[in-house]
């Protein structure tokens, strides 16, 4: 136990070295923004609609001590019923189409959707075929697209800040 405490002390706070994009949106400003819109923290749900797992790795990286997403009051939640924001990765495989729709429908409104990665943006290298419906926007309304294969955690953070500044498409509809 003592060794663990020592190691924690030596590691210190790594999120101080947060990348540039995050500095412009410090936890305080981000939280103030969210507070204005939601009056509480932002809850995110992720759905892999057919990705290669590369994009998942970068979403997971948001939780590491360098990006420390949870420290800004942004949480990943286990159920779409608790989520404000949906991150969708991958081209939408036909086998995931129904699950994606149902996840989206289960979220309370207003809700935002971010298409994460080139595949979610346009179908990427997989395109559209008997097995793939291509872009996420072909299936559910998308608010913001983050390009990249996979997009960096910094690009993901920027998109999260950006999307929360706009009225969701689900409301406009």
């Amino acid at each position, binding site marked *: 136990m003592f*060794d*663990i405490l020592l*190691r*924690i002390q030596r*590691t210190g706070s*790594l999120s101080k070295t947060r990348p540039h994009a995050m500095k412009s949106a410090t936890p305080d400003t981000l939280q103030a923004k969210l507070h204005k819109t939601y009056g509480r923290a932002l809850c995110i749900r*992720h*759905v*892999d*609609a*057919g*990705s*290669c*797992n*590369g*994009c*998942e*790795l*970068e*979403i*997971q*990286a948001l*939780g*590491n*001590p*360098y990006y420390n997403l949870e420290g800004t009051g942004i949480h*990943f939640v*286990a*159920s*779409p019923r608790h989520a404000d924001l949906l991150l969708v990765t*991958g*081209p939408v*495989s*036909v*086998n*995931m*189409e*129904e*699950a994606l729709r149902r*996840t989206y429908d289960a979220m309370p409104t207003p809700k935002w959707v971010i298409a994460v990665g080139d595949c979610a943006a346009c179908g*990427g*290298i*997989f*395109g*559209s*075929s*008997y*097995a*793939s*419906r291509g872009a996420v926007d072909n299936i559910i309304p998308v608010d913001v697209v983050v390009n990249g*294969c*996979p997009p*960096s955690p910094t690009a993901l953070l920027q998109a999260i800040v950006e999307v929360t500044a706009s009225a969701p498409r689900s409301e406009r509809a």
Partner: protein
Amino acid sequence: MSMDTLEHVAFRLPSNVTVSRVALDAEGWRRAADSMQQAGAGLLTLWGSDDRDRDGHFRIHAAYLARQRLWVIDHAMPTGTTVYPSLATLFPVADRLQRAVRDLLGMHADGGDGRPWLRHGGWPESVFPLRRDVDPAQAHAIESSAYPFVRVSGDGVHEIPVGPVHAGTIEPGHFRFSLVGEKVLRLEPRLGYTHKGVAKRFESMRLHDGHRLAARVCGDSTVAFGWAYCSALESMTATVVPPRAVTLRALALELERVANHLGDLGALGNDAGLAFGLTQFSALKERLLRRHAEAFGQRYLFDLVIPGGVSVDPQALALDALAAELASIERDVRELRTLYTDHAGLQDRLQGTGCVGQAQARALGALGLVARACGLEHDLRADMPWPPYDQLTPIVAACADGDVAARVKVRFAEALESLRLCRQWLGDMPTGEVCIELSETGPGQLGIGLIEGWRGPVMVALESGINGGIRRCHVHDPSWQNWLLLEWAVLNNIVADFPLINKSFNLSYSGHDG
């Protein structure tokens, strides 16, 4: 068809390892399978091809992994027929592979499970999308129907359905647990959710571009798949990759292994209630990824391996910084290993959990790190070393216990061994070109790439088409085999330990679904 007879009639296929190919009739196919099993070779993969345009036949191909060689057995079904002898009684993994072949090509094994596997209702039962006369752009309306899971009956037996969308940031799949109380009696997965038609997509690509798709079959193993694809193509065109590129590829493969092990070791600590582990290991992984970006311009090394070499020639300064980071990560990993090993509460959760015995692992065809954690010391890098592993061969990590703790131990050992290899290569990096031009190849050539990725053997079978196109490309991820092990490992465990057991395997969905 004894092994000796097979030797006699076999001819060599272009590959980075030793591959022998034999074409047999149905009886020979069946007997070859028997001989393989008796000789201790495992079925690595199975794929079909529609050659009706060429000679009127459908063909089925099996790849068997022997200790120092890969065997490829071909069987052309008589004209007008689509049936071949099932391998499912000899090799358990054959069952799902055969179901996948049927869903995509309409070729039928004469036994085994009749349920669809990759087809979930996204295309009609009468359409076989991988046949040559089926338009790749043709889409269909979904007609889903209930999947008949195997029911376990008895007093107090109940089911828990999970997925395809899971609680965390992970890939989709469905798990059907049958339980009594908390105890798992059966786990039946349903996979295929991320099937996105990779094999069909290959057929509309050029040979010299296909590596980009191969690199995206399974994103956490992008170097392994990219290298396997390029090996198949390069051996087919008799291309000799420059030494600097060879070393950089191996460096990348080991870095990929280290990055994945770091990620999983952290997640395993977390799933066992030690959040400290996740914080520490995810920070180490991030440090490594940042150095990747500095040296190679890519955090996950996507598209680093290209036909003829590598796409980036890293600066000496970036490689020095990488070497220094790796030395520091190595110190941290050693320290954390001691903390994990000495932590009684953690070990209590890991030891004896999700156990698979060695005999069972062998019978189910276990591969890669999961097999090594059951005491089966197979590692392509040592068993059939291709350059540069023929010059610098890793010490194979193994542990016979077969539980979650064993898989943690093997991950620690492999991460540290990879760091040692990286240190050697970084200290003695060849100079010169990093990429050379490939010569053209005619149609109808088959090349095999076989690489030990971080999960285990990754295979690409690539056949050239006309005008520099791809006629057929089959990729195989070791998760096909290891899903069977996972289903076995959870039996008699409590369902609450499933996340921990699952994470200790960390199998690929995308690599499996294709």
